[in-house]
């Protein structure tokens, strides 16, 4: 009996060891990002998955990044017709931040951008194109008509995928959209099969602004001086074409549907505060003169005071704050360059410049070239690590 018990214990211990040994050893920053997802409240999970996805991609863990962005896209594309979390976010007593995070349109579009990039690296051109196109659709909800579906980078990448798919029609259509959004910028040549995609700077920040925090405002990251990128080959410089300003995408979206609800909440909060303050003021005033009245006036005054206090409580309980959660490791700018893949090339040296054209040598690095099974290639690089803030 004792021997059997010992054997069972040993087997269990061995099983545990095997399970532990089979868990991959992730780099510390990615492990930390996974821990954040695991401990995050359900309504924040997609946000942490987005951030962890970029960290995984930055570390070259493309499989992990794909898994995370699949989950993110699942959250984004799920239609919240009548969910409890959505209803809570609309209620007077809950902040907008209580809703399940999907991000603002620029964040959703960037999630599609990263999923498309991963597909492109895998040689899945049609699914990459579908992702870039899906991202453009997320940007269709801008209030200002001229800023709807104006993610030029996504049109360019859609066109690039169309070209790699061998579909002249699809490529032409997307490049025409790109040319409309970025007139005069060059298009890839027929023989090009290398796409260099470089991200610069740190992405926009959100803040719940206004006295009551009911308005969402966007700010450029203050520590993001690099605005341009170029490939360095010997003494030659090949500047990358700036195709996207993510801050601009965030800031030009216009009003949101929820803004009107937040304004309504604010109005309710202010009205109930005014009513409550007036009633408690009246009660307090009447209390002073109570002795000169006959009968049970004290009870009536107490009732008025109670209603006033209740109205003030309603005012305090009304949550008007806008949802300022934001994807904190997005870039500020996207830059592209295309060429014929040089034979034997494994990586490209990239340097970064500020708005005055001054190179920051501390940011210079190599962009690894991913060659897919069809012989086409993508070189992707960020100016700063995905864990930079």
């Amino acid at each position, binding site marked *: 009996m004792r021997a059997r018990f010992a054997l069972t214990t040993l087997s269990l211990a061995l099983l545990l060891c095997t399970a532990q040994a089979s868990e991959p050893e992730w780099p510390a920053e990615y492990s930390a990002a996974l821990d954040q997802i695991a401990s995050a*409240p*359900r309504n924040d999970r997609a946000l942490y998955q987005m951030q962890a996805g970029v960290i995984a991609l930055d570390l070259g863990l493309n499989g992990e990044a794909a898994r995370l962005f699949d989950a993110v*896209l*699942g959250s984004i*594309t*799920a*239609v*919240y*017709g*009548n*969910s*409890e979390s*959505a209803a809570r*976010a*609309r*209620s*007077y*007593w*809950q902040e*907008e931040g209580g*809703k399940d995070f*999907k991000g603002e349109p620029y964040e959703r579009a960037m999630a599609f951008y990263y*999923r498309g990039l991963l*597909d492109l690296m895998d040689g899945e051109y*049609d*699914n990459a*194109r*579908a*992702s870039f*196109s*899906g991202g453009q*659709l997320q940007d*269709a*909800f*801008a*209030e200002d*008509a001229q800023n*709807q579906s104006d993610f030029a980078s996504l049109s360019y990448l859609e066109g690039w995928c169309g070209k790699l*798919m061998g*579909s002249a029609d*699809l490529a032409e259509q997307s490049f025409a959209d790109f040319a409309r959004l970025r007139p005069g910028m060059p298009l890839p040549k027929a023989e090009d099969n290398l796409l260099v995609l470089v991200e610069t700077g740190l992405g926009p920040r959100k803040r719940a602004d206004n006295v009551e925090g009911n308005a969402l405002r966007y700010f450029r990251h203050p520590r993001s001086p690099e605005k341009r990128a170029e490939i360095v080959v010997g003494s030659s410089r090949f500047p990358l074409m700036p195709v996207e300003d993510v801050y601009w995408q965030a800031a030009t979206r216009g009003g*949101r*549907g*929820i803004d009107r*609800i937040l304004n309504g909440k604010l109005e309710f909060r202010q009205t109930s505060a005014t009513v409550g303050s007036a009633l408690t003021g009246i009660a307090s005033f009447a209390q002073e003169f109570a002795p000169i009245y006959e*009968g*049970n006036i004290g*009870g*009536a005054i*107490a*009732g*008025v005071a*109670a*209603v006033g*206090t*209740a*109205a003030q*409580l*309603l005012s305090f*309980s009304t949550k008007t704050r806008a949802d300022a959660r934001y994807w904190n490791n997005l870039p500020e700018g996207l830059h592209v360059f295309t060429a014929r893949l040089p034979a034997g090339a494994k990586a490209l040296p990239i340097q970064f410049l500020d708005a005055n054209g001054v190179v920051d040598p501390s940011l210079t690095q190599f962009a690894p070239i991913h060659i897919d099974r069809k012989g086409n290639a993508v070189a992707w690089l960020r100016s700063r690590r995905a864990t930079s803030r």
Partner: protein
Amino acid sequence: MTSRIALIAVAAALLVSCATDQAGSRVDNSAGRATVYENPNSAGPISGLGIQSNDIASMTDKMVRSMLANPQLAGRAVPPRVQIDSAKFTNESNSRINKNRITDQLLIELNRAANGRMEFVSVEDTAGVEQIREEKRAGLTDEGTLGMSERVAGVDFFLTARITSQDAVDTASGLTTRDLYIAFKLINAERRTQVWGDSYQYVKSAQDDVIYR
């Protein structure tokens, strides 16, 4: 007078309790949900505008019936050899699609329903087949029970599909509509002629909550 005061006090108490109760509900203490089996032939509890399992089930069912009703395919004295490979499927839609999911289901359902009236050539298993053929010919293994053939099977027909979609967005209301169309064609691998064709289409619309618009 006393009853009026009592009424006001009760109303106040109700208002206060209502406010505090709602504020207290900020903590998400909702219970979980036990695992339940969902019907793959019907829309799941979470859905969007993309292709879902019930779409693939409906599409597969329609294509299998259509192909087997075609005498050029299912009525031949010698069963034709058909290749179904996701590499010949093109996704031009706005939805990411796992094409293997479509071809796998199509292949399994067709194979089952055809019941020998068609043969399916598995090009993706070529490497595995080659290895076993080499082992047999090198004498490492015996011939098996089917005997050996001089060459692997050639393909008579191959299936292609093009998935396209058209999206429309009403930016004022947030209503989005997706018209997804999949055109299937069976091509004669010698003559390039199309021997069969059919399509599957859906139009879905959805409006997300105002908090996401």
